[in-house]
């Protein structure tokens, strides 16, 4: 058993890689991606700036075509200068991502912004380092370069920028600005401690400068799912903000489905061919024939607005409600979506339960139990039902996976901002980092769900042994 789980876990790795690579590949070769959109955006921005004040035209070139330099920069920004397989490895985090490139003069430091730190409500400070490149010549005339850095430090905020800007004697070259903050550039002596930097030397230029490059392993294996520029947030944050929604809907509907389907299936099997069976079959078949989201649209048009809210996960003033009010509000919002979530698996579960119980009632052990003189109730509920729950139990893992991954159809219909809708909107916005991040999480959930399925199978049914 233990060995089996280990083997299944190992098998999950190639599955995960296969799925993510396939989607990654398609996204990368698909035309009209984020890169093309950025180019188009730049072009249109150029066109408007040309028609207005012709500023920075030397930088960008003419309006219809971007200069090769800019294109090259953009390509690097989107990582398109590398083959797809390398891009995929970067996304995984087994290949370093080059995310900064800087040309530095030897012997002169430059600043590197590491992060923006919120000090209080009004001021944000830049966390920065100073990088210095020193050259050393040894006796064989070989030049070696040392790249060192100062410890990171905060910049100080400036009380009044406008005063300085009107001051004619103010030397702008000496100051760096960021959102009304400044710091005087330190001279080399002022910085006392220097460390070896994580910048790498890429090449040495002829004019006493070097090109430095900063690489970092930053991918799935490091727990980094990507950064969405459109939303300005890390993908993992975006997903974490929505996880509880999917978990709520997933588990609630799963539990309700089992609570309803198992007794219904038992009842249908016991009354096979009777009026109850036929009538409930009609309901079950109707449920099977109508997609959940379509039922959702119908329910919304009849009950939405007056009885149930039209969309959303909770009321906007949810946090101000009392505990009882919160519960009421949550049920109020969740009722219709959960009905739709349940419709999908309701029919299959009920029929599965019914058929499996009918099959078991045919078995020899039931005959034996009857022959021993056990009561009908005892035979059915202690012998037959227990065995017929096995096929349902095996489905539980994959159901968890499917429910947790979120249904974008239902979430879109009810305007619930869950994981499914996040992925769907990312698809429309062509936000590839969110798409890949959400995909990775969903695939992991699905795979773990399948594993749970297999394990429950073995736990429940002792006849099954894994080799």
């Amino acid at each position, binding site marked *: 058993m233990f060995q089996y789980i280990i083997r299944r876990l190992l098998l999950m790795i190639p*599955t995960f890689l296969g799925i993510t690579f396939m989607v990654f590949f398609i996204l990368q070769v698909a035309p*009209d991606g984020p890169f093309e959109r950025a180019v188009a955006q730049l072009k249109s921005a150029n066109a408007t700036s040309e028609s207005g004040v012709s500023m920075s035209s030397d930088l960008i070139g003419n309006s219809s075509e971007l200069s090769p330099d800019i294109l090259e920069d953009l390509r690097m920004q989107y990582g398109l200068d590398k083959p797809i397989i390398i891009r995929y490895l970067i996304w995984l985090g087994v290949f370093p991502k080059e995310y900064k490139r800087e040309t530095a003069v030897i012997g002169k430091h430059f600043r590197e912004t590491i992060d923006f730190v919120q000090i209080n409500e009004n001021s944000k400070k830049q966390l920065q380092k100073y990088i210095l490149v020193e050259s050393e010549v040894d006796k064989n005339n070989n030049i070696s370069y040392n790249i060192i850095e100062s410890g990171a430090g905060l910049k100080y905020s400036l009380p009044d920028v406008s005063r300085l800007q009107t001051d004619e004697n103010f030397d702008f070259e000496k100051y760096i600005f960021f959102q009304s903050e400044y710091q005087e550039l330190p001279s080399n002596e002022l910085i006392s401690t220097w460390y070896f930097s994580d910048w790498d030397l890429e090449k040495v230029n002829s004019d006493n400068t070097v090109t430095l490059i900063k690489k970092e392993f930053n991918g799935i294996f490091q727990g980094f799912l990507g950064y969405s520029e459109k939303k300005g947030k890390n993908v993992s944050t975006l997903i974490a903000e929505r996880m509880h929604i999917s978990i709520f809907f997933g588990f609630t509907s799963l539990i309700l489905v089992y609570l309803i389907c198992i007794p219904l299936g038992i009842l249908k099997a016991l009354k096979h061919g009777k009026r109850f069976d036929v009538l409930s079959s009609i309901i079950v078949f109707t449920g*099977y024939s109508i*997609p959940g*989201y379509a*039922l959702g649209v119908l329910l919304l*048009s009849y009950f939405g607005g007056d009885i149930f809210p039209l969309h959303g996960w909770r009321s906007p003033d949810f946090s101000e409600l009392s505990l009882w009010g919160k519960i009421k509000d949550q049920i109020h919002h969740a009722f219709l979506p959960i009905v739709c979530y349940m419709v999908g698996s309701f029919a299959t579960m009920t029929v599965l339960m019914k058929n499996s119980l009918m099959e078991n009632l*045919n078995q020899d052990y039931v005959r034996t139990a009857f022959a021993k003189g056990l009561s009908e109730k005892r035979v059915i509920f202690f012998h037959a039902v227990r065995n017929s729950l096995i096929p349902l139990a095996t489905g539980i893992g994959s159901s968890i996976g499917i429910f947790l991954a979120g249904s974008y159809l239902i979430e879109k219909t009810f305007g619930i901002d869950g994981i499914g809708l996040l992925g769907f909107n990312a*698809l429309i916005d062509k936000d590839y980092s969110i798409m890949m991040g959400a995909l990775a999480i969903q695939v992991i959930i699905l795979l773990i769900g399948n594993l749970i399925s297999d394990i429950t199978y073995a736990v429940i049914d002792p006849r099954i042994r894994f080799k």
Partner: protein
Amino acid sequence: MTNKILSESILQKRINRFKSIKRGYYSLIILISLYVLSICAPIIFNSKAIMVKYNDDYYFPLFNSIFSNKNIEAKDLGQFEIKGKKKYGQPHYRLLKKQYQKEDKGNWVIMPLYPYDPYEEVISEKDEQFTDGNGNGVWDPSEDFIDENGNGIADKYKYTNFPNSQHLLGTDNQGRDVLSRLIYGFNISITFAIVCCFLSYIIGIIIGGTLGYFGGKVDLFGLRIIEIYGSIPFLFMLMILATFIKPNVYILASMYVFLTGWIGITWYVRGEFLREKSKDYVSAAVSMGQSHWNVMFRHILPNSLTPVITFAPFAIIGYISALVSLDYLGFGLQPPTPSWGELMAQGRTNLQYWHLIVSPLFSIGATLFLITFIGEAIREAFDPKVHSRLR
């Protein structure tokens, strides 16, 4: 007579058993007749006239548009202007009919049974709703008019209309007739499902058959690949592809089959082949020197068709649902293709128009309901299970 009964083949037996299950059999008949009706839809639900008589000449616009590319211009039929605007190109036959009746020169137009087609050019026909004073077919602000609803107010033309005597199921948000869009949508959905079914059965039988027949390492390796492939969120992939391939029904069907449709049937066929290949008749065929191909498709395949056929109706339900959800999300067939999912999406944005919600929902529900009945009946006929209980 006795001879005939003795030689009744197993297939004949199954067909007879299927026929004896009434609800499945009648569902099949209803579904087939609906599909035939939807194939004939262009001559029943169309805004082009079947026959026009104009100045001793006879025209057949509908058949011209189906069988040849010959165009009939509006001016050929004497329709020079519509509602005060010059009319070019194709005539507007419903207005032409009114015009002829008004002119009373012995010209006439025979319209199809239901004279609205799903791609209807959006044009206000509100002037048909009332009789105007001077008889020019246009209501001028100064003139008296008697409107049909009798409230004396000229209703402003709006695209979406509730069901009325002209549009039996109302119109959608672009003024197109919902009923004819539903019928054409039915045809497209079933066609999509049939194409999907056909393609996925070919792929499924070949791949599943190979895996099941050869077994061993081929099977193990192939299953891993299918497992990976099957875990890909296919609807997501299809949507990615649909953003840059603009598919028609057949391309969308092939894309769907290629991405996911073949997997279910492959599992089924593989399982069947695995079971069948250990039987004696296979060993006999192999020992006679039959080629692998022959053994697989001449001997094993006919013997393993039962679950494959039973699976088909449920696969078709899956295909139709998939098409509807894709259209609902806007990643399916290109507009203006009539589709149920697109109507559903319109209903979601216009919740007050119940006919946009109920009519596609009813169509989907009824169609899938019929197919479920057929599926149940086929399963019952092919693989009858006798449930006996002791008490």
